[in-house]
C-alpha cells in the first residue's frame, strides 16, 4: 500500500528560495533564455497559481510578483516579453480548456518562447465589432475546415501556434455562432503576408486561411461557445497588468523631458506649460495605474479599471509625441527611413519622429478609444446600450 503525502502549498519563503535556486543554477546573464525559462517553468515559477507540472505550484497568484522580482533582479527578462500573446492571452485559456496532456505539450514551449503564439481574431470586416467576424469553420469528420482572412496579426510570421475565432453557425446570432480553436501555423493552407503600416514597417500581418484543416481536439470549449472562451481570458488581465508600476518620469514623458533639456533654444512659455501639463497627466496616469494594482492586490475596493488606464495612457502617448515634434520644429519634418526592414520604431536618428508616427496606433490597437469610452459608459457606469441593428438576429442576415 502506498500513501501520497498531501501536497502542501509552499509558503512565500519556500517559493522565494526555489526562485533563487533557479537563477543561481541558470544565471540569466549567462545562459540562453530558453534554458532559463525552461528551468523556471519546471520549478513551477512561470505561473505560480497553475497546477504542478504545468508551470505552477498551486500557490496564490499574489506571489507571482515576488518571484518575477527575483528574476528581474538576477538580470532575467520580464517573463511575458518572451512570448507576449502566449503569456498574455493563451496560457490561461490552455489551462482552462486543454486536457492535462495537451496542456503539458503546449505550455512548456510557450513558457520558454520556443513556440511563439499569435491571435487570429480581427478581420478586415470585424474590428471593433469582433463578434461579427466571417471566417468559417465547417465540420468534416474529426476535423474542421477553416476558410477566411485575418488581419492585424502581430508575430504571425514568427509564431508556431495561433488561437483562432471562427464562425461555426451563421444562423445563430453573432456572439453565439463562434467557436474557439488553436491552429498549428505550419498547417497547409495558411499564408502569412506582412502588412505595411504608416510607419513604413511591417510589424503586423494579414493571414489567409484556405481550406485549413484543424483536428477537433484543437477546439477549446463547446461548439458555439467561442465568444465565452475568448472572454474568459479578460479576467486574466489583472495579472498581466504587471507587478509594479514604472518609475515616475519614465516612459514616453522621459523622451519629452529629455528633448526639452536638449533644446533650450526652443523653450517658450507656451511649450513649458504644455510640457508641465503632460508631465502632470503622465504622473497622474502612473498613480492611477498604481491604484488599480493596489486595488487588485488587496481586493478591498474596486480599482479604476483597465478601460480607463488604457484610454488615458494611449491618448497621453500621442499627445506627448505631438509635443515632441512641435518642440523639434523643422527637424520634426524629417524621417530617417520608411524601409519595411527598419529594425524598430524606437531608435535611430529620428526616433522621436518614428515614435510620433507609431503612437497613432495606440488609440486603435487593443480596442479603439471610442470603444473604450463605450465600455466605460456601459460596463462601468451602466448606461444603456445603443440600439443595435444586429441584436438577436442571425449573423447571416446582418448587413455587411
Amino acid at each position, binding site marked *: 500500500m502506498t500513501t501520497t503525502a498531501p501536497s502542501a502549498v509552499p509558503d512565500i519563503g519556500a517559493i522565494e528560495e526555489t526562485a533563487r535556486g533557479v537563477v543561481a543554477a541558470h544565471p540569466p546573464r549567462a545562459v540562453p533564455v530558453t534554458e532559463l525559462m525552461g528551468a523556471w517553468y519546471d520549478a513551477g515559477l512561470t505561473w505560480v497559481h497553475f497546477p504542478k507540472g504545468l508551470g505552477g505550484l498551486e500557490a496564490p497568484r499574489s506571489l507571482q510578483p515576488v518571484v518575477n522580482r527575483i528574476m528581474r533582479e538576477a538580470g532575467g527578462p520580464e517573463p511575458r516579453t518572451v512570448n507576449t500573446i502566449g503569456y498574455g492571452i493563451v496560457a490561461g485559456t490552455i489551462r482552462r480548456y486543454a486536457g492535462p496532456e495537451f496542456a503539458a505539450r503546449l505550455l512548456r514551449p510557450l513558457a520558454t518562447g520556443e513556440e511563439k503564439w499569435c491571435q487570429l481574431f480581427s478581420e478586415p470586416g470585424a474590428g471593433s465589432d469582433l463578434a461579427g467576424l466571417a471566417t468559417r469553420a465547417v465540420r468534416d469528420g474529426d476535423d474542421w475546415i477553416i476558410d477566411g482572412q485575418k488581419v492585424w496579426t502581430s508575430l504571425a510570421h514568427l509564431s508556431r501556434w495561433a488561437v483562432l475565432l471562427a464562425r461555426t453557425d451563421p444562423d445563430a446570432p453573432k456572439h453565439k455562432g463562434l467557436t474557439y480553436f488553436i491552429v498549428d501555423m505550419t498547417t497547409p493552407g495558411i499564408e502569412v503576408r506582412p502588412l505595411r503600416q504608416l510607419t513604413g514597417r511591417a510589424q503586423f500581418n494579414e493571414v489567409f486561411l484556405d481550406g485549413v484543416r484543424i483536428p477537433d481536439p484543437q477546439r477549446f470549449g463547446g461548439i458555439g461557445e467561442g465568444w465565452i472562451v475568448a472572454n474568459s481570458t479578460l479576467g486574466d488581465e489583472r495579472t498581466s497588468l504587471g507587478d509594479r508600476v514604472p518609475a515616475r518620469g519614465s516612459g514616453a514623458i522621459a523622451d519629452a523631458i529629455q528633448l526639452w533639456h536638449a533644446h533650450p533654444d526652443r523653450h517658450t512659455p507656451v511649450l513649458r506649460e504644455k510640457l508641465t501639463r503632460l508631465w502632470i497627466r503622465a*504622473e497622474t496616469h502612473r498613480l*492611477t495605474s498604481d491604484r488599480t494594482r493596489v486595488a487588485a492586490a488587496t481586493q478591498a475596493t474596486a480599482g479604476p479599471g483597465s478601460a480607463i488606464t488604457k484610454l488615458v495612457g494611449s491618448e497621453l502617448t500621442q499627445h506627448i509625441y505631438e509635443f515632441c515634434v512641435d518642440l523639434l520644429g523643422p527637424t520634426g519634418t524629417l524621417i530617417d527611413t520608411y524601409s519595411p526592414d527598419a529594425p524598430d520604431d524606437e531608435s535611430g536618428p529620428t526616433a522621436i519622429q518614428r515614435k510620433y508616427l507609431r503612437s497613432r496606433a495606440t488609440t486603435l490597437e487593443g480596442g479603439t478609444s471610442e470603444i473604450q469610452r463605450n465600455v466605460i459608459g456601459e460596463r462601468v457606469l451602466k448606461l*444603456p446600450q445603443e440600439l443595435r441593428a444586429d441584436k438577436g438576429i442571425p449573423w447571416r442576415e446582418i448587413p455587411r
Partner: protein
Amino acid sequence: MTQEFEFTEELTELRTMVREFCAEVSPQSVVRETMTTESGFDPALWRRLATELGVLGLAVPQSFGGEGAGLVYQAVVVEELGAALVCGPVVGTVCLAMPALTALADDTIRADYLPALVNGDRIATLAAPTAGGRFSADHVAVSATRGENGWTLSGHLAQVPDATSADLLLVAAGTETGVALFAVDGDAEGVARTSLSTLDLTRRQADVTLDGAPARLLAGEDECAAACERALLVASALLATEQVGGGQRMLDETVAHVRDRLQFGQPVGAFQAVKHRCADMLVALEQARSAAYHAVWALEDGTDDPRLAVSLAQAVASESYRWISTSAIQLHGGLGFTWEGSPHLYFKRATTDALILGSAAEHIDHVAERTVDLAPTGS
C-alpha cells in the same frame, strides 16, 4: 499605516457612516435652507459631526482630543462632506486651523485650543499670507506690536474663509523680526468682521479688520512659516479630496439623469455623444482621486515631496471638479441651468475650491518649478 491607495475596510466603514449621516441630517433640502441663513451654517449640525460621529479631529493627536487616526481618515470624511455640500467651517477649522495648531511645538498651546475645535465647541480659521496657495511672508498684511499688556494686531485681512463665525482667528502677522503666528478671539475688541456675499453660498468668507486687537503669541518667527506651510499643504490635499467627493456626486447624479431622461424614444445616455462625455467625466474623476489621495498619503508618510504632491493634486482636482460640474450642467440640459437643479451648487463649489488655495494655473507653475525647470540629473 496602510500602503498607499489601500482603502481598508475601516476606511470604507467610516465613509459609509459619514455618507449615511449626511444623507439623513444634511440632505440637499437642508443644505439649501442653511445656505440662505445669515451665518450659512448650522452649529448644531457641526457639533453632531464632532461629538456623535467624532469625525472632525481624526488627524489630531489623541493627547489633544483627537483620534490620531491620520490624514487618510480625515480625507475620507472631507470627501464625503464635500459630496453632500455640508454647510460648515470645513475649510477654516478642519483643513486650516487644526493642522496649523497640530504643527506647533508647544503642547500647552495645542492643549489650550485643539480639544474645543475637535469637539465642535469652537470654530476657528487661519489667516496666513499666501501667494499661489503657498505661504508667503512678503504678503503679510497685519502688523504685531508688543505692548505693556501683551501683543496687539492691526491690519486688514481679505477674504478669510469662515471668519464670520470663527471664535478663534489664527493670524500670521509681521513683527520687527519676521512673521509670527497669533491667536485672536473672534469677538475681541478691535476685531471688525464684514461678511462677504460669496458665489458659493455654502462657503462663507469675511474681511477682517484688526485695530489693536489683543493677541496671544502662538509661534515665533522661527516656527510660524513652517506651521502655516504645513497647514496650507494639508488644507490643499484635503480640499482635493473634497473636490473628488463633489465630482463623484455630480457624476452619479448625471449618470442617473441620462439613464432616465428619454428623448428620441430612448434614454439620452444611450447616445454616444452623451455616453462618451460621461465616460470622460469618470476618467477625469479617477485621475483626480489618484492625485488627491497620493497627496494625502505623501503628507502622512513622507514618501514624496509634499509640495510637488500637493500641487499635482490641486492642479488635477481643480480642473477635474470644475469640468465635471460644468459637464453636469450640460448633460442635465435646461434643468442644469435652473436654481432648482443640483449642478449649479456643485459648479459654484467647484469654482470656489479651484481658487481659494491657489488656482490650477498657479499649481501647474509650482509643478513646473519642481520638474520641468530642474536641470536633468546626471548631467
